[in-house]
């Protein structure tokens, strides 16, 4: 099997485990020296949190999350995934108390693998403004209700 398809399979399994709240094999996929980049230019980690802690914090805030892979492909040492994330804000998330709002978000990641087949760098982009809109900072509900 080619490296690319190995990497694609690793990401598919990683997403599946994550959706099932299973981080037990996290270290077999993610290198300990991973650098994660957020959607903002120059944004790397959130303070002193590790990527595992960040990923775990989403599971606490959004325990019912459904993570769907809409598209996945790769070349050389990179894999890109376009995903959809549906969840309810049921728990504390980074200090924000549960709002019980539903979130439906599309986004993209790219993952870079090292020679041992682990993720060494990742970049994410999604609609941050959309998250704020859906948590209720600018909710879309009124627009939807307007049509009724």
């Amino acid at each position, binding site marked *: 099997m080619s490296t690319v398809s190995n990497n694609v399979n690793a990401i598919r399994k990683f997403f599946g485990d994550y959706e099932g709240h299973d981080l037990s094999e996290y270290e077999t996929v993610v290198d300990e020296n991973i650098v994660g980049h957020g959607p903002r230019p120059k944004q790397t980690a959130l303070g002193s949190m590790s990527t595992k802690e960040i990923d775990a914090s989403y599971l606490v805030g959004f325990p019912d999350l459904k993570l769907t892979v809409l598209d996945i492909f790769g070349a050389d040492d990179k894999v890109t995934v376009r995903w959809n994330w549906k969840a309810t804000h049921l728990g504390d998330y980074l200090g924000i108390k549960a709002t019980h709002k539903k979130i439906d978000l599309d986004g*993209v990641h790219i993952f870079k693998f090292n020679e041992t087949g682990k993720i060494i760098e990742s970049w994410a982009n999604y609609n941050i403004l959309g998250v704020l809109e859906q948590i209720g*900072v600018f909710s879309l509900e009124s627009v939807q209700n307007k049509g009724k």
Partner: protein
Amino acid sequence: MKPEERISLVKGLFGDQGQVSKYAHYISKDVVIHGPGSGQKTVGLEAAQKGDQIYQELYPEKSFEIKEIFSAEQKVFVQWVCRGKHKSTYKGQPIQKREFEIAGFSIYQIEEKKIIEIWQFWDRLGILEQIGEVSPKEPIEPGYYLELLKQLGMEDVIDRVALLSPREKDCLRDVLEGMTAKDTALKHNLSSRTVESYLDNIKAKLDCPFKRDLFQIAKILDKMDLI
């Protein structure tokens, strides 16, 4: 098409970004563009040209840097950074901080040597925040932010703000100054209770359950000259 050919097609489009008359060479007339807003969808070459034309007018000075590009199957992935400048002057007054930088990803689906579908993801919040760095004291042409918000799929914000009464807008500006309900009450010669009820109205009208979010909203609205 080979992966290299697909990559060079997309690179060509980036090279001609903003020159919408050249888009037909790269983009199918039936193109479907997803994003950047959640659920936002643009259909057809003409609509795509119109959208980019608006950006071109808002940001005539901008350039794209491709950080990463690769292709597999019929698709091309691009990670890009757009750097640009806001307009340099308004009514003869120079604008202080003009530079902005936005990062994004785009995925292109290619069929019969043309782009047939595009998924785009970029930091819309970043644009709003960086807009604030255009000297907020200078008046901006009417319609400037409206056009931008439309492009960002956020027209509803305007509708929400329109629900606020002048008194409520005053209160929201005071929130931004870090004033408590008590401070605001003193300033406007009102009872604290009245101010609290204004704040509750604002939260309801903007659909914002928390006071800490209200501060964030006030910040964004203020930057867009909406309050």
